């Protein structure tokens, strides 16, 4: 029910139908682990709202319907030329096909991990891949130090090299339980369970309500009827239209 009629406007490259993406965000993760739990992910209308955001981001520097690294930098730092190690990592993880651009489907699927209802295991694993700079399957000590140095460089924090060494040593001792000089995914999971704030960046707390507001800002009464399946607004819409 709720017939979805596609808009006849030109779509960006790599565009995928909202109904397909809605079905595949967070729910996909649950099924791949063998469980049949239906975890709520993005609704169809939320994916449509994300498309509006995507169009805006992907046209900000090069108007080709694809998010380039400069456009991500512009969105995050208000400066398209600002280089940043962590933004680079985010870009690489979002660019699943590794073709140098983020397409709409990749955008939605990756953002799905940041949804408040996304499985915690997915957030933990995404963070692990983020910090595994050279994608060796482990977080090595020199990668950790490189990231700390990158953060100090980016911010106003001034800490001596000795101090950085001390903090990296201690963190590694706490996390590298097997003592083999690197943090593997299991050790990372264990470490995060003791320090849950480590994945706070992996949730955008108001993502679902932000998207709700994006929908409502431009929706018409006709579209309210169409959205009835997701939001049961028909009653509200009728009241609104007769007011």
């Amino acid at each position, binding site marked *: 029910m709720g017939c979805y009629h596609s808009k006849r406007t030109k779509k960006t490259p790599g565009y995928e139908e909202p109904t397909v993406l809605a079905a595949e965000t967070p729910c996909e993760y649950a099924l791949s682990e063998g469980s049949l739990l239906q975890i709520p992910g993005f609704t169809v209308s939320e994916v449509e709202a994300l498309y509006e955001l995507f169009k805006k981001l992907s046209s900000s520097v090069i108007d080709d319907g694809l998010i380039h690294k400069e456009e991500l930098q512009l969105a995050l730092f208000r400066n398209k030329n600002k280089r940043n190690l962590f933004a680079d990592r*985010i870009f690489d993880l979002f660019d699943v096909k590794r073709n140098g651009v983020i397409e709409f489907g990749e955008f939605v699927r990756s953002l799905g991990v940041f949804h408040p209802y996304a499985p915690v295991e997915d957030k933990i694993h995404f963070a692990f891949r983020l910090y595994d700079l050279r994608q060796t399957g482990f977080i090595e000590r020199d990668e950790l130090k490189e990231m700390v140095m990158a953060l100090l460089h980016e911010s106003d924090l001034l*800490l001596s090299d000795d101090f950085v060494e001390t903090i990296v040593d201690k963190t590694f001792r706490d996390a590298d339980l097997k003592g083999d000089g690197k943090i593997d995914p299991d050790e990372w999971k264990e470490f995060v369970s003791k*320090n849950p704030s480590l994945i706070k960046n992996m949730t955008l707390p108001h993502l679902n309500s932000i998207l709700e507001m994006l929908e409502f800002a431009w929706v018409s009464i006709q579209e309210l009827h169409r959205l009835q399946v997701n939001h049961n607004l028909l009653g509200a819409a009728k009241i609104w239209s007769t007011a």
Partner: protein
Amino acid sequence: MFDALQSRSIGFNSHIAIKKGNHKEINFYDEELNKADDEKKDGELASTSLNAFDIISFSSGLNLSGLFDDSYNSVDDGERFVSTESPENLMKKVEEFAKEERLRVKRRKELGLEMEGQNGNLMISVEVYRLTDTLFVVEAKRSGGDAGCFKETWKNKLKPVIMAT
């Protein structure tokens, strides 16, 4: 239901949303972190200190809220610096500042607070993190409200107070 949504609306400056009148900015930041802090066990001294990954997560490159909020600016909306002053002293200074400027303290933690003033135009959150027993990171962030208000108040009023010995 529509009214409830309207009162939660955000003012975007972009073309993709219509600005609703009479809105209040949503606090994008820190809700998850505050929950985690509250749940930390008291006896674990080690876990109240920042580890290397905590430091890394300060990066604005890892804060995707900026994708959704046009008014958010990682450069102007916050600052972090290292301090050797005791966190208790620092928090006292901040509390006194709030009192003098007649700001309402919205949320209070052991080493942090969030205050609001000027009819919701000014929203500042200040938090102190422990690096070691003698070294602390002070973080001041705009947690909502107007960016100009925050910048002006932080640079000209609150920051000098905190940095004064």
